[in-house]
C-alpha cells in the first residue's frame, strides 16, 4: 500500500487511476510511449516514489515576457505531459497535484524533454493545502432549519426577516453574501490575519474587526447587521476556530468504483481535463 492510500478520497482516486493506467500496460509499452517534444514545447514524464503520476498538473511559468505568463497542462494515464506552443523564454517548471506537495522548480526552455519528479504529500494536512476552497468552506456549520424564521437578538440572534435556512445561506454565505466578492475557504479567508487576531479578545471579535477592513468594510459589516450580526459572527468564528484547531478539509468523492471510462471522466474533472490553460 502506498502512502497515499492513508488519505482516502482524492488520494485513493489517484492510486486507482494509476492502477487503471498501468493495468495491462507492460514495461516495454511504457518505454515506447515517448513524448514527441517540438521546438516550442516542453514534455516528458512525471514520476514520484509511486511511479508515473497520472492526472497531475505541470506548470510552466515565466517572467521573461512583457507580462508574466503561465501555461498549465495535466499528465496522461502514464504520467506523460506536453506543454505546447510556449513563447520563447526561460521557464520555471514544477508539478502540483492532489496527494502531492509542490515539486522543486526546474529551469527549462522550449524544445526540452524534461522528466519531472513529483513529491508525495508527507501527510494529510500538507495534501489538503491544495484542495479547492470549496472543501474548506463546506466545513461551515449553518444554523439548523429549525432556527428559522429568526427570533432576533432576544431570541436566537437571527433577524426575524430571515425566514429560512436557504435565505440565510443566500444572504450571508453564498453569492449574495460573502462569496459574491471573495473566494471563501481559501487560505486568506479560513485563517484570520495575525495582525487582527492578536488585537482581538477572541475569534468572534476578530471576525467583527476583519469584516470592517477596507473601502467596502461598511458594506460587509452592514450585511452582517441585516441577518443578525452576533449569530453570523459566531458562525464564521466557529468555522475558522475548527480550521485553526486542525479540522481537516472535506474529502473529495472517491471514484474507486465504476468503469475505467467513468473513472477517467472524473479524473478529467479533477485534473483540469485534457486541457491547456494558456
Amino acid at each position: 500500500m502506498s502512502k497515499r492510500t492513508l488519505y482516502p478520497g482524492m488520494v485513493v482516486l489517484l492510486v486507482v487511476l494509476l492502477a487503471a493506467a498501468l493495468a495491462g500496460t507492460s514495461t516495454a509499452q511504457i518505454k515506447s510511449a515517448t513524448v514527441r517534444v517540438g521546438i516550442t514545447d516542453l514534455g516528458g514524464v512525471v514520476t514520484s516514489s509511486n511511479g508515473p503520476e497520472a492526472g497531475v498538473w505541470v506548470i510552466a511559468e515565466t517572467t521573461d515576457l512583457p507580462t508574466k505568463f503561465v501555461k498549465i497542462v495535466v499528465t496522461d494515464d502514464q504520467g506523460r505531459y506536453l506543454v505546447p506552443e510556449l513563447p520563447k523564454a526561460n521557464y520555471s517548471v514544477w508539478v502540483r497535484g492532489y496527494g502531492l506537495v509542490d515539486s522543486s522548480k526546474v529551469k527549462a526552455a522550449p524544445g526540452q524533454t524534461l522528466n519531472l519528479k513529483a513529491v508525495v504529500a508527507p501527510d494529510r494536512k500538507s495534501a489538503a493545502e491544495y484542495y479547492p476552497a470549496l472543501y474548506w468552506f463546506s466545513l461551515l456549520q449553518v444554523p439548523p432549519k429549525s432556527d428559522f424564521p429568526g427570533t432576533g437578538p432576544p431570541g436566537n440572534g437571527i433577524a426575524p426577516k430571515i425566514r429560512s435556512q436557504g435565505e440565510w445561506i443566500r444572504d450571508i454565505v453564498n453569492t449574495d453574501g460573502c462569496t459574491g466578492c471573495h473566494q471563501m475557504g481559501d487560505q486568506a479567508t479560513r485563517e484570520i490575519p495575525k495582525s487582527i487576531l492578536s488585537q482581538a479578545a477572541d475569534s468572534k471579535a476578530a471576525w467583527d474587526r476583519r469584516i470592517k477592513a477596507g473601502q467596502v468594510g461598511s458594506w460587509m459589516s452592514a450585511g452582517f447587521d441585516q441577518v443578525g450580526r452576533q449569530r453570523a459572527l459566531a458562525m464564521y468564528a466557529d468555522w475558522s476556530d475548527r480550521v485553526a484547531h486542525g479540522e481537516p478539509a472535506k474529502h473529495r468523492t472517491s471514484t474507486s468504483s465504476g468503469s475505467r471510462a467513468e473513472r477517467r471522466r472524473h479524473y478529467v474533472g479533477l485534473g483540469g481535463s485534457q486541457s491547456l490553460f494558456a
Partner: protein
Amino acid sequence: MWDWADPKVYLHDAISTDKRNPTVNANGPMYGGLEDSGDYLTVLDPASNSTSQVKLKVRDPETPSSANMKLAAPSPFWGNEAIWNSQTSVHSFSMDKQGRVWAAARVRKPKTPSWCQAGSDQISAKLFPINYGDRGLELYEPKTRETTTIDTCFTWGHVNFDDKDVLWSSFGPNGVEGWFDTKIWDKTHDEKKAQGWSAFVLDYNGNGKRDAYTEPNQPADPTKDRRIDVSFYGDSPAPDGSIWGSVMGMPGALVRFIPGSHPPETALAEYYEVPWNNPRAPVQGFSPRGMDVDSKGVVWTVLSSGHLASFDRSKCKGPLNGPSAATGQHCPEGWTLYKFPGPNYKGAVENGSAESAYYDFVDRFDMLGVGKDVPLATGNLSEGLLVMVDGKFLTLRVPYPMGYYAKGLDGRIDNPNGGWKGKGIYTPISTRAPFHMEGGKGTTSKLVKFQMRPDPLAN
C-alpha cells in the same frame, strides 16, 4: 494565463469578441473592466504577451468616485491606504461587429438629466420617468483609440447585443429595462434618440397586449395589466427576439421581456420564479445571478442554492399570461436543477451544494471543444469552471495560483480551421481581493484562457 493589471485593482468582466460572432477581433486585444477599483480598461495583446491601458473618462467631473468610500477599518494588507479610485466603475462589456467596445460605465452623478424625467418629450420618459440612474455607456474605438461617453437615463450592468445591433441593459433602476440602438447612434450620435426603456408589465388581463396597468402596491385588477418592480442582474437576448434576465432575491426569478412593435408602450413581461416551497417541483432552489440563453432559447442560470438551472419555457403546461401566471410559481415543469459537484455546508438541508457560482456562459460555438450549446458556470469555490456536458459536470480547475475566481466569461475563435489551437474560452480572475490569492500582496488579476486538446500530448 497572463498577468494583466496592477496589484491594487480587481477585475469584474472581460471581453474578447462579439458574442454573436466570435471570429470578430480574431487574435486581437482583450479588454478588462476594473469596476470600483480603477478608471482604465486593462488590455492584453496575446500576440506579444504584453499589456496596456485605455484611460477612461467621465462627462461630469462631479461623478461619484470609489475613492470617497471611507475605510471602516484598516486593511491587513494595505493599512489605511484607499487603494480603489474609480469614477467610471466599469462592470461589463459587449464588442460589436467592428470590434468596438461598449462598456457599462458611470459618466455623471446619479441625478438624471431633465429629459429623463417627468415633463420630457422623450417617449420612454413620458411613459415611465427616471429620476436617478447609475452607469451609462462608454464606447472605445480601437482604430482611433478614442473613448466617448454616452448618458442613458437607466443603468447598465451587463451589456448584450441582439441580432439587430441593439444593446440591452441590466441593473434597472428597479422596474426598468433599457436598450440602446447602436445603429441610430452611428447615424445620429444622438444619445437621447438612440435609447429607450420600458416598465416590466405582466399581461395580467390575459388579452395578449399591453394595456393600462396597476402598480405593484395596488390591488390587482383582472381587467388591467400589472407592473412588477424588478430589475435584471444578468440579461441575454434570445433567438426569438425576447430578452431574458435574472432577478436576484428569495426565491428570485427569470423574467422574459418581449419588446413588441414599439417597446416603450408595447413591451410585456413574463415572470418565472425559481421553484421554492413548490410541491410540484422535485428540487427547490433560490436566487439566480449569472445567466445566458442557448441557441434553442433555453435559459441557463446559476443559483445561490448551489445549482446550475435550466429553464425551458416550451415545457410550461399552463397559461403564460393572466392572473395565474403572475404568481411566478406557475411553471415548475420548465425548470431543471443540477446540483453542483462537491460537498454541502454542515447542517444545510435547503440548498444543493456549498459551491458558489457567480455567472455562466453558454458556449454556442464549441469554443471550448466539448460541444455546442454547452453551459459553463464559474466554480468560484471549486477554483475553476464547471462545464455541463450531457447532464454531467466536468470541473476544469485552475490549480495555480490558488484562488482562481471568475465572473464574466466569453470565448473566441481566432482560426476557424485551427482545431483546438484556434479557439478558447477566456475569463478574468475577478476576486475583489487578488491579494487573497496564492502569492499574497502583489498578486494581480490574470486573464485565463481555457483550451481542450484531443489528447494530453497533442501539440
